[in-house]
Structure formats: C-alpha cells, structure tokens
C-alpha cells in the first residue's frame, strides 16, 4: 500500500493547517478504539481538547517518546491500530525511533508529525524543521516508505482513513500554524495511565 501519488513533494508545498482542527478531524475518524499517544508540547493539549477518549494517552515531560510509547502499545496489541502524535521539535530529538519503527515493520502504527517549525510551548523558538530539515524525507530515509506530507485537510483525512484500513507503518507530515491549543491536559499521571489501561482492556473496566 502507499499514499496516493498526488502528495506534496516537500514541506514547502504542504498547506499550513491548524493543529486543533486536524486533531478533531482525526479523532472523528476513529471507530475501533484505536489508541492515540499525544506527545509533549501542544500536541497532547489539543488531543485533550478534541475530547478525552479512554484510548488516549497523554505523555508529560518525556520529550521525543510519543513514537516509542506508541510502538510499545502496538507491539503489545498487534490487532489495535495505534497513532502517535508528535511535534517536530520532539521527533528531531528521537529520529532513531523512526528507524526502529521501519525496521520492525510495525504494521499497526501511524505517526503523525505536527510541524510548526518551532518549539512552540517553550516560546516559539525556531526548530530545525524551519531551516531545511524535512521530516517526511528523513522518515523515508529511515525506511518508512509510506510517508508523505498532507496536502490539505481533506488529504489528511484520506491519509488517516487509509492508515487505519491498511497495513503500516505510516507517517503523515502536517504543517501547522502557531495558534495556541484550546485546552490544557490535566497533569495527573497515575490517573492518565489508569484510564488508558482500562481503555485498552488491560485493566478491567
């Protein structure tokens, strides 16, 4: 499987979208209790704002670990689809995890990168993505052949739907604006974990 051929060839050609809007669009496409891991930064705030599902995990503080955590859930539950949402600054810190996902050919994992070209939550400092680092090209170089930039919102929805239907691993690059997130995640780790494990059916509900 592959994304349709009409994807933007580079970061520059992808439309700048809004994180909360596309997060809501993604959540609306979830029908099978898919697990979603929200990375540090504003990524997990907008996941929280998009409606708290028991299958969402909100990672706090462990910059770069959304993809590994998603990979672990995917390894534990190979029949469940897992989506890892990660900021561009964060994935730059853990690029090796893309190679791991590729090497393992983790079929049930989709990585969504929210690329605002900045470390927004810490004050909007420029990230290397704004200076030439193309996460989709890097992902392909890591062996994630099913990687592409989302041209616009409807392309993003099609790509998410495809990734939920067909074998991955997938990586979807999303350029986003610098709008603030709509809500703030509650910082209560044991409760966040407990809800997630119940949502995954690991602990009795």
């Amino acid at each position, binding site marked *: 499987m592959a994304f349709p051929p009409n994807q933007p060839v580079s970061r520059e050609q992808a439309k700048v979208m809004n994180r909360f809007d596309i997060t809501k669009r993604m959540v609306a496409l979830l029908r099978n209790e898919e*697990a979603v*891991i929200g990375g540090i930064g504003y990524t997990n705030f907008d996941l929280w704002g998009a409606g708290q599902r028991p299958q969402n*995990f909100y*990672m*706090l*503080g*462990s*910059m*770069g*670990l959304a*993809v*590994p*955590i*998603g*990979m*672990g*859930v*995917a*390894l*534990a*539950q190979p029949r*469940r689809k897992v989506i890892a949402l990660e900021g561009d600054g964060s994935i730059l810190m*853990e*690029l*090796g*995890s893309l*190679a*791991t996902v590729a*090497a*393992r050919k983790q079929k049930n994992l989709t990585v969504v990168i929210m690329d605002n070209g900045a470390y927004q939550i810490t004050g909007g400092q420029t990230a290397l993505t704004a200076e030439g680092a193309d996460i989709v090209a890097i992902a392909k170089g890591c062996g994630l052949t099913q990687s592409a930039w989302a041209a616009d919102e409807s392309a993003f929805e099609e790509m998410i739907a495809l990734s939920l239907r067909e074998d991955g691993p997938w990586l979807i690059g999303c350029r986003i604006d610098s709008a603030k997130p709509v809500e703030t995640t509650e910082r209560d*780790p*044991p409760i*966040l*974990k407990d809800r*997630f*494990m119940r949502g*995954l*059916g*690991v602990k009795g509900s």
Partner: protein
Amino acid sequence: MEDGTPGRAWYEIVAHVLKRHQVDLVTYVPDNVLRPLLELVHADPFFTAFAVAREEEGLGINAGAWMGGRRSILMMQTSGFATLANALASLTVPFQIPNLMLVSERGTMGEFNIGQQLVARTMRPVLNTLLIESHTLTRLDELEFILDRSIVQAVATQAPCCYILSPLLTGGKVFAA
C-alpha cells in the same frame, strides 16, 4: 531443570526467569558483557528482542508495552543508563510503570576506560534519588531468587526495578594490557 544451581550460566538463569514471568519483550542497546544473554534471547522464539537507537527509546517502548498488557525488559550498560534520568523521572516513576532494567556494570573492578569509570558513579545516585528499587547481582546462587521475587514485586506494586549486573557475577570486561 535445576535453574539457579551451579552449572547454569548467569545468562541462562536470567532468560529462564524472564520466561517464567512472561517477560517476552527485550529492548536493548548492546554491551559486550550482555552478549551471551542477547544471543540467547534472539535465538529463542519466545522472546521478541531488538536493538533500539537510544536507551530512552527502549524505555518508552517498554512503557507503552506495559500499558498495552505486555511485559518487557530494557538491557544496556552503565553509560546507557546515564541517558535515562529524564525518561525515568517523567515517565516511569510518575506514571507508576514497572519498567525492568538490566544494566551491565562497567566502570568498576578493573575498568580501563575513564569515561566509563566516571559515568558509572552517577548510576546509584540517580536510582536512589528517584527511589527506584535496585539490586546488584553478584552471586550465581542468589540470582534466580532475586530476579524471581523482584519481578513479582515490581508488577504487584507497579514500580520499576533495576538490576545491576556486577563483574563479580559475569567476569566483566577484561583490560587487554
């Protein structure tokens, strides 16, 4: 099968106890002393074993696996453990995840690399500061008991546990002068 009795190598005992407790996912960054154990888990289809790019990546994978209902262990050397403080303090400990860690202890008892010697000194202070249970494995006759009981405890109390694999047990890495 007389596991734990003399005659079985330390790595055979470790693999056996992991198996008994359904710890079937092994993530690691390689180490020379760990080599026979890594070879054993790779050769045994019970285990899913693979190298990760960084130790904290392995910790994240293992945390996700635990939340998804699968048990795992992260194997590394002391210098690798030194890269974990942030992930332990922000993920493992506050989220109460029973991450199991096996650290091949470098930097002591005949170390030849000064970097290893210095970084090794940061390990126990980090474990102690974060109140992470740890056991230094020095004796073959205690190995099975320590591993067996502490895995039960980690799971029951949802708390991580770190095993420090001493050169007293493994012979360590010998300086070829």
